[in-house]
């Protein structure tokens, strides 16, 4: 991805010094969508954290006598085919989705960064091999690789998260690698090296902060897509399994009767939509803030 590598080149200088706060203030004023997205996202985070206190019912309590009730004062969003309170389940589902987003992006970064660092640091054959491996992963169509990996390791929320992380890490490896390579080439001519300063140290101290900005941008953009992908995997039955509380799984479970009881599907579906939209707006905003060159619609 030549664009990615080009991005890495231009990030750091624009983002230092006393201008920072001024820029953030100016940015917030001129990006209402970012503010809306961030607000919604924070509300979702709080709701997820406070789920046990906000929830009106036990999300797992099955009560067939109350099954498939329409939204009411008792059940804000109605009940599902097992009589479980959908409002409470949607709340708890937020925990799952946010957790999936954090874990998958975190794992991808955790695998990708060291790999990119090692590849760029050692260079030569190690670099080639590692990047070839990354290319193999990147050669896959987006949702298909997680599906392939789950095919190999079996269904389940944890497996789906591993599968998603494995399909995502090469992006971070590339970002890290190009950042290190750049620092390396700068060091090559710099005095620090000539004076015999431990250049491994210098390199890591320079390369990691340099890579941070593109990693944050990429991570915030990936977060929403990961949530969406995980919900899709759960929906087709290869992600979360009962008794996990997951939005995609909730929609899938009500597939048989959703035409007559649309709220059973629409509530979790809408929850996914709102969450992903909010996350994407925040991600776009973060990218515009950290990477002014990308103001355009990428």
């Amino acid at each position, binding site marked *: 991805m030549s664009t990615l590598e080009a991005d890495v080149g231009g990030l750091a200088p624009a983002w230092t010094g006393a201008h920072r706060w001024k820029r953030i203030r100016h940015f917030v004023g001129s990006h209402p969508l970012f503010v809306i997205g961030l607000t919604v996202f924070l509300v979702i985070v709080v709701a997820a954290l406070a789920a046990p206190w906000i929830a009106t019912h036990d999300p797992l309590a099955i009560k067939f006598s109350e099954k498939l009730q329409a939204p009411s004062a008792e059940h804000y969003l109605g009940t599902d085919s097992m009589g479980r309170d959908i409002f409470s389940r949607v709340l708890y589902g937020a925990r799952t989705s946010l957790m999936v987003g954090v874990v998958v992006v975190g794992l991808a970064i955790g695998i990708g960064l060291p790999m990119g660092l090692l590849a760029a640091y050692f260079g030569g054959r190690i670099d080639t091999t590692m990047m070839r491996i990354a290319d193999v992963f990147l050669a*896959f169509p987006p949702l298909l690789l997680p599906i392939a990996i789950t095919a*190999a390791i079996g*269904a389940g929320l944890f497996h789906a998260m591993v599968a998603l992380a494995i399909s995502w890490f090469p992006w971070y490896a590339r970002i890290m690698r190009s950042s290190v390579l750049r620092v390396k080439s700068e060091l090559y001519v710099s005095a620090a090296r000539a004076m015999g300063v431990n250049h491994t140290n210098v390199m890591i101290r320079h390369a990691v902060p340099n890579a941070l900005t593109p990693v944050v941008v990429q991570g915030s953009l990936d977060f929403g897509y990961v949530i969406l992908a995980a919900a*899709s995997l759960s929906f087709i039955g290869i992600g979360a399994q009962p008794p996990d509380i997951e939005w995609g799984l909730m929609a899938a479970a009500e597939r048989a009767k959703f035409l007559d009881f649309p709220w059973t599907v629409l509530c979790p*579906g809408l929850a996914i939509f709102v969450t992903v939209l909010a996350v*994407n707006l925040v991600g776009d905003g973060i990218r515009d803030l950290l990477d002014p060159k990308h103001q355009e619609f990428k």
Partner: protein
Amino acid sequence: MYRYIAQRLLLLVVTLIGVATITFFLSRVLPGSPVEMMIGFHPTAEQIAAAKKELGLDQPLHRQYVRFVSEAIRGDFGISLRTKQPVVEEIGRRSLATIELTLLTTLLLVVVGVPIGVISAVHSNSPVDHTVRTLSIAGVAFPVFIVGMLLQMLFYGKLGWLPLQGRLSSEVYLDHPFDRVTGMFLIDTLLARDYVAFRDAAAHIVLPLATLTLVTLPLVTRITRNLMMEVLQEDYVRTALAYGMPRRVVYYRYALKAMLIPLMTVVGLTLGFLLGGSVVVEFVFDWPGLGGYVARSIAASDFPAAVGVTLVLASAYLTVNLVVDLLYFVADPRLRRA
């Protein structure tokens, strides 16, 4: 040029072997071995031994690996644990339903999505552009299955205009036999001049097609718009304008010609999203293609079937993208050998 093609083909093979390798090792390293998947929770020792033998798991790991890869290259993915049929046959039976769906979607995306992206770029920052951008930001946040189910609710549940799922109604299936010449029902029914069956097949494909198109549309318009914006900022576009070329001609003849090449990339990339999305869409609409099959196979722990289908889908994607890359040579004079 031939050297480049050879290199790319080699890379394709290497990538595919890599893909097979990754799936192989993951399935052996991570918890949930094929044996457990195959025989359930409380197997007897004999059952385990028999299953291991059947899957070749009694062999040392490197033997298993060589066997797996060499069989996979020959297209032998073993016997489906669920249907007891060779996986290759299952794939053959279902692939054309997927091809029919994805091809039509691609066509629709090129016909609808690309013009929207181009218009959005030509009139950038106009109300049209803002609308398109807002819609596509919202559009990418929609889960595929919700789009499909919403369409089902509207066109089947509320309006009753279109069938809920499947590829043909059962009456039509029984009363209107037609030859599966191509495997794509829309074409086969036309070849058989069976218009009742054609109408039925067409009615069935509308919703899956619409779903797959809608969820991929934001991506296509977004990429097209960016590509077109880049072309419009090229110096030669300014030159054409500076020499009195009418804007219409510059945008839609000159710039579009330059767009042709990136456009092919869009199509290649799109196919990737389509293949991923088709898994969910086929699942929602009970479309008897590869996507729904792989989902059900994974859910049922049918390891050979699941791995076989994903390998086939991945190779299809890689092949299409290779073809797209090679088409560059045809379209871009700079790459042609002088």
